[in-house]
């Protein structure tokens, strides 16, 4: 009887808070992984999560890894800043003029749609195997979503606002500063979120392709020396970094996008 009461209260708790059930699923998956890695799978290929967690300090203490994580973070930061600058500049240049928009929007979409991964070897050829090629590749991935959303933000302004501003005698700069700019903010932050996803993808792709000092160098070394513990540790650190960066821009998007909904 008591047992059943207990069961019911657990069920009620899970039903009320899906987050607990979500946590439970993650724990069960980790447990399956742990069991599989401990008893079935060759330790050359997979190591259990408990050991990966324990080895995180080892990974960080491996000579060169902290520097590599630092370099990758630096590449991501520079690529993101450059993407925002280029994205905003090009987006405004194209979005503000109707004729320019009509002429160049198809070209932007064409470039956005091409699989840039096919030209990755060219980036290495032009920029070398150091950080500049990663930054450049990250920028080409991060720039286009920002351009497209900035253009959309500039274009989606209600005509009545523009008419009102103009009839009250606002000049071009005032319209830009007080009508277009505030209206663009939410879509600009949405673009920054997409841009961050793109920058992460571009930089990591280039890192994995060839790298002299960044994390790509170490993933290659750990893969080739069949050291799954360290490989998984490094990948978890990077995944955590990606999650934090994504979350930062998402928070900013929610924060700065709020005023429009009110």
């Amino acid at each position, binding site marked *: 009887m008591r047992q059943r009461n207990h069961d019911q209260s657990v069920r009620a708790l899970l039903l009320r808070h899906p987050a607990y059930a979500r946590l439970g699923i993650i724990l069960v998956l980790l447990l399956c992984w742990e069991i599989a890695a401990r008893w079935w799978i060759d330790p050359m290929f997979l190591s259990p999560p408990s050991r990966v967690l324990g080895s995180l300090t080892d990974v960080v203490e491996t000579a060169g890894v902290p520097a590599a994580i630092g370099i990758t973070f630096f590449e991501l930061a520079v690529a993101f800043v450059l993407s925002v600058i280029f994205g905003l500049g090009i987006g405004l240049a194209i979005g503000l003029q109707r004729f320019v928009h009509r002429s*160049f929007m198809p070209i932007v979409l064409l470039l956005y749609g091409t699989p840039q991964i096919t030209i990755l070897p060219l980036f290495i050829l032009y920029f070398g195997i150091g950080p500049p090629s990663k930054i450049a590749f990250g920028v080409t991935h991060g720039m286009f979503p920002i351009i497209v959303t900035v253009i959309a933000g500039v274009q989606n302004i209600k005509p009545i606002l523009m008419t009102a501003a103009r009839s009250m005698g606002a000049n071009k700069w005032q319209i830009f500063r007080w009508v277009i700019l505030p209206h663009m903010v939410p879509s600009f932050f949405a673009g920054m979120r997409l841009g961050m996803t793109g920058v992460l993808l571009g930089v990591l792709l280039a890192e*994995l392709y060839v790298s002299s000092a960044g994390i790509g160098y170490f993933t290659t070394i750990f893969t080739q020396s*069949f050291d799954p513990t360290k490989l998984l540790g490094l990948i978890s650190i990077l995944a955590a970094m990606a999650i934090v960066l994504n979350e930062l821009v998402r928070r900013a998007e929610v924060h700065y996008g709020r005023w429009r909904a009110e």
Partner: protein
Amino acid sequence: MSARGRSMRNRLLSRAVQIAFLLGLILLWYLATTQWGVSQLLLPNPVAVYHELMNVLSSGEFVPDLKVTLSELAIAFGISSVSGIAFGYLISRSHYLIRVFEPLLAGIYSIPIILFLPLYVLFLGLGPSSKIALGATISFFPIVLNTIAGFGYVDAIFIIAARSMGASDYQMFRYVLVPAALPVILTGLRVGFTVALLSILGSETIASLAGLGHRIVQLAEGMESARMFAYITFAVAIAAILNTAVSTLENRARRR
């Protein structure tokens, strides 16, 4: 001049600007290689690239690589669309499951899954299977998320109306749920297809034995720049054709 004539003229003018822009790029490229002495290794002559492209196309040298890439894409997309739609449908049957799984899947989707490529290569080797697995994993997420969104958020009034008119479970599925969910699912499938293509090309570029991405890398390492440019053009054209085909299919299916 009438408004219609002016808009027509504007359209022609912007088309002219587009063409001039592209021609100008090619002209710059040509001048850079012939006049300004940019190394042929870094930037091959466009004419040479054109000849190489014709050579690649006419000799049929691209066929084995294209076959590898396309078969990887087909298998990966097959796996991810079947599992994504099945899993998404099952989750969407209960509001509780949606609340449990949707944030979980969306959270995983926000991690750049390409990070796990070294693991896939470690488990499955350099051959096609690691590319298929990676492509299937990455494209699974947009498909399952859109399937959940499609089936899970059908307007309740349609369901109530169909029930009160005595629809059977099958009729409910066939005439209410599927038509309501289809547009969203199709978008998921299109995004999934594009993502699968990108990740397969990407993983071929990074670590592989065959395929278009592998061929481009091989030519880059052999410093055969003109041929590499030809293959890049070819790969971009293939991707454009595939993406256009999928978008067209999506639009056609949606209209019905």
